[in-house]
């Protein structure tokens, strides 16, 4: 009995030693030289592999940084300090830093969007939009099935009362949600642009009013309240010019009759259950 245990131990230790030696030899002689900076950068980068930089994950981005193909600020997730650190490691300029967040330009939740139909099928925006245009009355509105929420690696999008809402404090602007929306409602905007028009329907005002309580009816009150060029009017739809965006105080001045002009904070907190006029 004792000898069996002894033998087993010797054999196992022997195997261990031989394999260890083999690994050591392989490590020594077949080493692929890796730029030590990649390791360093990877430690700094967020490591969520969101793809927001347009690369296949953080490691790929790190290699691109070293190769000079990308600027540190291209990482949408990293904070300013991290970007500065990245630039320091690389010894390059920070690059153009334009921090962005996503905004979903629709305010039509279950209370405000009319013409809801019964729907039975896959809970997915693309699928739903393939069935008679989806259950919502407005053919441009948010379907509320959460395809963007599922696509978000940071769980920054929530479905509130049948409407997708971006929570700004979690959004890093990676842009993963932009392509999945079959309605094209998601837009990446500068983080400092706080005012948005939560409607993207180019339909005529009466048609919009038929299917929604809070559409942009193109009344231009906001246009008049703001400086020249801060809004662009496109038929019955007013859009924020994100190149030269208005300040939040425009909301007070404009008195949007449909409450579709909102700050993102206001949009998040807007009590859509209440009737118009009570909140905002």
């Amino acid at each position, binding site marked *: 009995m004792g000898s069996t245990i002894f033998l087993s131990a010797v054999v196992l230790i022997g195997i261990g030693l031989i394999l260890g030696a083999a690994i050591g030899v392989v490590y020594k002689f077949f080493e692929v030289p890796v730029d030590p900076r990649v390791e360093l950068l990877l430690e700094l980068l967020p490591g969520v592999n969101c793809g927001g930089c347009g690369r296949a994950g953080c490691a790929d981005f790190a290699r691109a940084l070293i190769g000079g193909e990308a600027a540190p600020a291209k990482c949408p997730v990293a904070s300013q300090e991290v970007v500065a650190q990245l630039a320091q490691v690389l010894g390059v300029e920070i690059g153009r830093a334009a921090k962005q967040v996503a905004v979903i330009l629709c305010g039509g939740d279950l209370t405000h969007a009319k013409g809801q*139909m*019964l729907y039975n*099928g896959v809970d997915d925006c693309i699928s739903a939009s393939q069935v*008679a245009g*989806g259950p919502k009355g407005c053919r441009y509105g948010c379907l509320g099935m959460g395809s963007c929420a599922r696509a978000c690696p940071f769980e920054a999008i929530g479905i509130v009362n049948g409407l997708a809402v971006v929570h700004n404090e979690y959004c890093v602007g990676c842009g993963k949600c932009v392509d999945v929306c079959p309605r094209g409602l998601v837009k990446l905007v500068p983080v400092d642009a706080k005012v948005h028009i939560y409607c993207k329907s180019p339909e005529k005002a009466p048609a919009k009013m038929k299917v929604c309580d809070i559409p942009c009816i193109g009344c231009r009150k906001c246009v008049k309240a703001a400086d020249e060029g801060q809004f662009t009017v496109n038929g019955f739809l007013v859009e924020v010019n994100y190149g030269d965006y208005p300040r939040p105080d425009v909301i007070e001045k404009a008195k949007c009759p449909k409450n579709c002009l909102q700050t993102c904070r206001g949009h998040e907190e807007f009590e859509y259950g209440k009737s118009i006029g009570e909140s905002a």
Partner: protein
Amino acid sequence: MTQDSKVQLMLPKGEELLLSPSPHIHDKESIQSIMLKVVLAMLPVVAAGVYFFGLDALRVIGWCVFFCVGLEMVWCFFAGKPVLGTVKDGSTLVTGILLALNLSAATSWWVCLLGGILAIWLGKQVFGGLGQNPFNPAAVARVGLLIALPRELTTWVPARGMTADLNSYSKAFYTTPDFTRLQEAGQVVDGMTCATPLSLAQTTTKVLGHGEQAAYNFAEIANPEAYWQYFLGNMGGCLGETSALAILAGGVMLLAMKLIRWQIPVFYIGTVALFSGLVNLLWPGVTPPPLFHLLTGGLMLAAFFMATDMVTSPITPKGAAIFAVMLGIMTCVIRIWGGFPEGVSFSILLMNALVPLIEKIAAIKPFGFRKAAAVKGGA
């Protein structure tokens, strides 16, 4: 005509129309109806079990169903799923009955409870419930119990016809070395327990080796008279596996209701017959003739009710055939050369694990498939 009908002309209101993708009509069959049909097909087998082993069989079935259904509800309660949600589809009922059919009529209630835990929790729910389990829950329970509680699982009660008169066939069960050995171990209480034909065959080869002596002894348990008794179900064994007649009746029902693929029973039984026949032909002392293998043990039950389990068998007909052939070979190998007398449950578990691979091999080609079509786009 239009004048009259205009008076009470009723038109659909737009708001109540349902939007859903095509197709808009469905076959009547549902999971529930499929499961209930399977239960229906099991009734002859249950009836045979009760006939041969008395009300004890009913007791075991009752415990198994009770524990399986109860444990499923307990799991669903703690998993935050609707408690009655998954019980309603009837799949737990099928698992419960199938588990009981795989146990001896002498099984005590706590073994049924353990079996239920193994089948429902370990076999099914840990993988995510119905449809997600890679292994047949009843087979998981049977194998788990067999390894954990070998004595309880191999305490067989004699079937009705065996104790009544000691004819030459049933005499064999009491006069073989196996029986003597059991007696020595104090397991036989006045003819209340007995051996199964398969365990007799194994003990024979263990005691006598693979020679002529063994072949001679095989004749004791493998002769036309014995075959007839085996076919009826007059032998020791699990309460659901003994009667080939009842299982065939249930199997015909399954096939008629198109609940199983014919490939599985046909290829499984065929392979076992061919393989054991070949071995018996070459070395008559190694194993009894093929008919013995077909009629004894759990082969029939497995071929129609266990291996055909939809969730754990290949989805394509070709895959099912490959699955069944490999199952047959594996069953024979375990029975003839393995450490256990019966290899059906083991082989089912092993083959369940190979199903994804088999499906890869047996993937069907799309209609009009051409190699060049792999070229993207087309027209």
